[in-house]
């Protein structure tokens, strides 16, 4: 049976929808459609787009490689101080990204606590390179993988692992055939959330990796730079980002918007 929704709720909901959709609509209206070709090349869209895709995918992979084992430890180990550890790990979600970038600079910059040593012994420099952009992006993306994976792991009845063991499966076989398949939706959700976050990353990247076209200037950075000199190009770049985000939402519509 459907209950009737009161009118005031309808009104507020309509304002909410307008609030979210109006900027999108405005961008579409203001886009200089007649100068499409020149605006595109002028803003260096192709380069920034390529870089954004490479950086965001690399950051997603790195987030998964590090984040999934981390989630496993948080969900399954009984060591003391887990809640403190979890708080530290998910801090980048609530922390201003620019602060994260500063922290990365202090740690991994050429003169940083670890970065100096990296540079002197191995000749590795992260700042102002694509690697720096990947590191900064992973910093903000990985916590999303950790959260999604950990909650997925917690929702799996641990007796399944006991059952697998009793049936003769060693821990690795049980993880591969039983736990990971059950964890699939959570892993997918974590990966997509991390990728979407990576695609929009701005603050940590520009602070830590800089804003060098072709090396660290991803789409959001390109939008930021173009917004004064070439507003039309900035709008086009923004629309590209929006299109990609919508693509993510459509691909994941059921899993993210309805849970799993």
């Amino acid at each position, binding site marked *: 049976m459907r209950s009737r929704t009161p009118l005031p709720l309808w009104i507020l909901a309509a304002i909410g929808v307008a609030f979210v959709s109006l900027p999108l609509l405005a961008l579409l209206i203001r886009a200089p459609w007649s100068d499409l070709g020149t605006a595109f090349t002028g803003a260096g869209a192709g380069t920034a787009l390529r870089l954004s895709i490479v950086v965001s995918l690399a950051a997603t992979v790195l987030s998964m490689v590090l984040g999934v084992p981390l989630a496993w430890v948080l969900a399954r180990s009984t060591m003391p101080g887990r809640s403190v550890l979890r708080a530290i790990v998910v801090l980048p979600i609530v922390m201003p990204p620019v602060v994260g970038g500063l922290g990365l600079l202090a740690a991994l910059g050429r003169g940083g606590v670890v970065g100096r040593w990296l540079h002197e012994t191995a000749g590795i420099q992260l700042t102002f390179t694509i690697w720096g952009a990947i590191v900064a992006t992973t910093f903000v993306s990985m916590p999303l993988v950790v959260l999604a994976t950990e909650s997925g792991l917690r929702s799996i009845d641990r007796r399944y692992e006991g*059952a*697998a063991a009793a049936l003769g499966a060693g821990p690795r076989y049980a993880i591969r055939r*039983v736990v990971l398949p059950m964890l699939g939706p959570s892993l997918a959700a974590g990966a997509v959330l991390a990728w979407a976050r990576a695609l929009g990353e701005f603050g940590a990247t520009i602070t830590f990796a800089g804003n060098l076209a072709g090396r660290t200037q991803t789409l959001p950075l390109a939008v930021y730079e173009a917004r004064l000199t070439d507003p039309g190009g900035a709008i086009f770049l923004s629309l590209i980002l929006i299109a990609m985000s919508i693509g993510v939402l459509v691909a994941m519509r059921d899993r993210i918007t309805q849970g799993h």
Partner: protein
Amino acid sequence: MGLHTDLVARRGDFEIAVTLDVADGETLALLGPNGAGKSTVVDALIGTLALAHGTIELGGERIDMLSPERRAIGVCFQDDLLFPRLSALENVAFGLRARKVAKAAARARAAGLLERLAPGVDARAAPAALSGGERQRVALARSLANEPRLLLLDEPFANVDVSARPGLRALVREVARAFGGPTVLIAHDPVDALTLADRVALLEGGRVTQTGRPDEIRAAPRSAYAADLVGVNLFVGELEPLDDGAAALRTAGGDITVSPDEPVGRGSRAVATLKPIDVSLHAGEPEGSARNVFRGTIAEIAVDGERARVRVDARPPLTAEVTSGSAARMALRVGDEVWASFKAVEVSLQIEDDPDRTPAAGTLGR
């Protein structure tokens, strides 16, 4: 040989201390209420819970130091615990594949087990697409796939629809009979324990309070709990339809009249239970509507507070429960002649071997 445990295990503040001996080819039911420690015993046996001390010996070998995957116990879990992302066939083949049996061979063996234990179940189906009874049949096949040395059946009927239970119970009986090693059946329903097991061990508060053959325990329950749990009147026999829709249940100890919900076939095997409180006692032949009236002599009177359990030697033998007040009023004494009666509708009836639901006997080899 067989299974011998003498174990102590703890989970939080709760402790179990359980000694069990099950011979090869024997089925022992571990019967207890919720919270008695049944699942703790299961976890200790399969090794997901470490023993505080004690030993588990299986087939002449100590297994309590082995990790769960090396204990060779075939477990049929409560809630079946079929792996949701694997098909029925992959679930059955899981243990074989974990032990590096070649894929084709594992699947062939799994398919054979499924065909015998779960006929009509689509081997490619995901567990979620199967009924509770079908899932439990697949779980049973899975527990046998690895040729275990111990069969551990953890409340296999708990999540199974009442209508599917009798067929599944008959199947479990067949499986346990064909299985050559010891079988442990964890149960909280006394009917399961009393009809499937060679011996019953009662578990209360983490301790085994009584062990014996089902008839021994029913004849002499040692605690009020045991009396409530297993003191039911139990009749196992074959049905014969009567003209008026009722049926006669012919048992080795005598015949009773029951009232089935649906027409029954002649010769169907059935298990019937009757609560002692539904049996009335009379000094003389009673008048009234009860269809089951038996004359016998009082074999035993056990008074427990306000209640008295009276065992009547009749054909069939019956146990009645009366208040101790009315026992005194009737001046019941051991050796007295007495009339016992109960209504056919009070008898709870489960028909077991509907031929459509049960695979033919003798097809369940290892």
